[in-house]
């Protein structure tokens, strides 16, 4: 344990010294939400002063690491053409190698398949949390139901309202889509449009996803029509 003052900028942001600029950005956003003024994660444990000094420390780390010139200078200063030989970093690598893959954490996928242990790194976890890497849910194709759409959204750390803003689709319909409240959804042609916009907003396949979803919708509606005819 080292107090915040003694940690390197990399340790503060919980990234490896070879982290990419994107990783730095994501880690910074994550740290801001951890040490934000209304963060639940520090509630009751840290005082107001401690939180604001942690935040300052995060800002400083980001300021240096997000500027490639400053970062190079900093690396030289802490004796890291990287990190070999640096005790703190060595410990971190060891921890990073522990099993506990976040992709596995974020998406349930098929319960029958055994994911097996996979290396996890903080930055990678954040990356996955932000949904940059294609998840196993998506790469497999298969059926896209409402629950899977929601998982894909949560994986990216996106709220329904954000999708609504982006797609101009009423958030109530987006919720209905996720919950598969088929009876409350409008005509199929609209739903297809909504799901296409939803998929696009999340970077999912804008062809296969609506196709699969609408198939479920139509199936449900055909069954219902069949029942009411009888």
């Amino acid at each position, binding site marked *: 344990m080292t107090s915040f003052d003694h940690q390197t900028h990399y340790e503060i942001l919980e990234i490896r010294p070879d982290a990419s600029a994107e990783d730095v950005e994501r880690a910074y956003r994550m740290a801001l939400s951890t040490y934000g003024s209304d963060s*639940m994660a520090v509630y009751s444990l840290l005082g107001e002063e401690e939180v604001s000094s942690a935040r300052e420390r995060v800002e400083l780390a980001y300021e240096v690491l997000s500027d490639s010139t400053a970062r190079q200078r900093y690396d030289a200063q802490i004796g890291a053409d990287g990190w070999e030989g640096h005790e703190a970093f060595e410990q971190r690598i060891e921890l990073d190698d522990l099993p506990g893959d976040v992709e596995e954490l974020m998406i349930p996928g098929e319960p029958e398949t055994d994911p097996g242990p996979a290396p996890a790194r903080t930055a990678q976890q*954040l990356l996955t949390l932000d949904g940059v890497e294609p998840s196993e849910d998506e790469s497999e194709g298969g059926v896209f139901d409402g629950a899977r759409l929601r998982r894909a959204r949560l994986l990216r750390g996106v709220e329904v309202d954000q999708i609504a803003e982006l797609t101009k689709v009423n958030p109530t319909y987006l919720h209905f889509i996720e919950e598969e409240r088929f009876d409350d959804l409008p005509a199929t042609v609209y739903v297809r449009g909504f799901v296409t916009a939803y998929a696009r907003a999340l970077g999912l396949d804008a062809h296969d996803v609506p196709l699969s979803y609408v198939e479920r919708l139509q199936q449900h509606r055909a069954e219902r029509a069949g029942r009411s005819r009888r």
Partner: protein
Amino acid sequence: MIEPVRGGDPSASMSSSPAPDAARMIAVGGGKGGVGKTFVTVNLATAIAREGYDVVVVDGDLEGANTHTCLGVPPPPLSLADFVANREEELSKLVVPTGIPNLSLVAATHANLAAAQPGHFQRVRLLSRLRQLPVDLVLIDLGAGTAPAVMDYFLVGDDGLLVFCPEPTSIENAYAFLRAAFYRRMRLGMVTHSVRGLVTQAMDQRNEKGIRTPADLLREIEALDPAEGGRFTETLKCFRPRLIVNDVRTADEIKLGFSVRSVCKSYFGLDADYLGYVNHDQGVRQSVVSRRPLVDINPNCDAAVYLRRIARKLIQTLGQPGGAPEEAS
């Protein structure tokens, strides 16, 4: 107080390699009542049992027993209360089937409310007997609070799961729980009387020495006795609580697990493991009302899928079903 590891090998408890034929013990705590400890415990136990492992769930809450209810088991004639009250010596007689293959239960029903919690000696006896049960895994469902009786189970188990909800009250109690576990664990790891005294002082948040954080404490210890400082750091490395966020509704609430993990590292110096989250699901209430585990009555709902995910991660720390448990790495 249970003192399995004073000084010497700090790994002897929390991440120990149990005797080859000993059951693995995992305690589930969280500080606050109502965050879903019992719900999570029962469902993880069921999911692991369904994978072919022999599992015993132990209701560690003598003052608020309801693990049996979540499993739909009627109050058994013998319970932990009888063991604690010395009415029954043989722990294996308390183990009752649950109707779920490979899963049995030690209930905590009809406790003597005048002296519900077992004393120190009884806890030692209980924990050592639990390890001897001929099963792969013992899951202990802890009560709320941070009383010594609760903390000891958490510290002596091979693994400690910390369940909390994305609510300030739950987080507050989870940190209180972690704080209690942390200082008790650290005190167990120290050898000299003076340093142990120092840790005891630090447990009082308004201590005279002005020790406010674990980092302050480490500084004081290093100044007093560098060897103990080293032991402190070693002990820290072996204490690895695993976090489960229950009842999440938004992406931000999922991220809370990462944030708490970060704070564990920066504040306590602990490498906590974010094991997973369980999302808010209508099926949960239905499961409690029908007194059957969610993973059984509604295996395809989101919460059940996530619970099985967590169960599989725990299984990775076990050996083959029915075989000797392996050391988790």
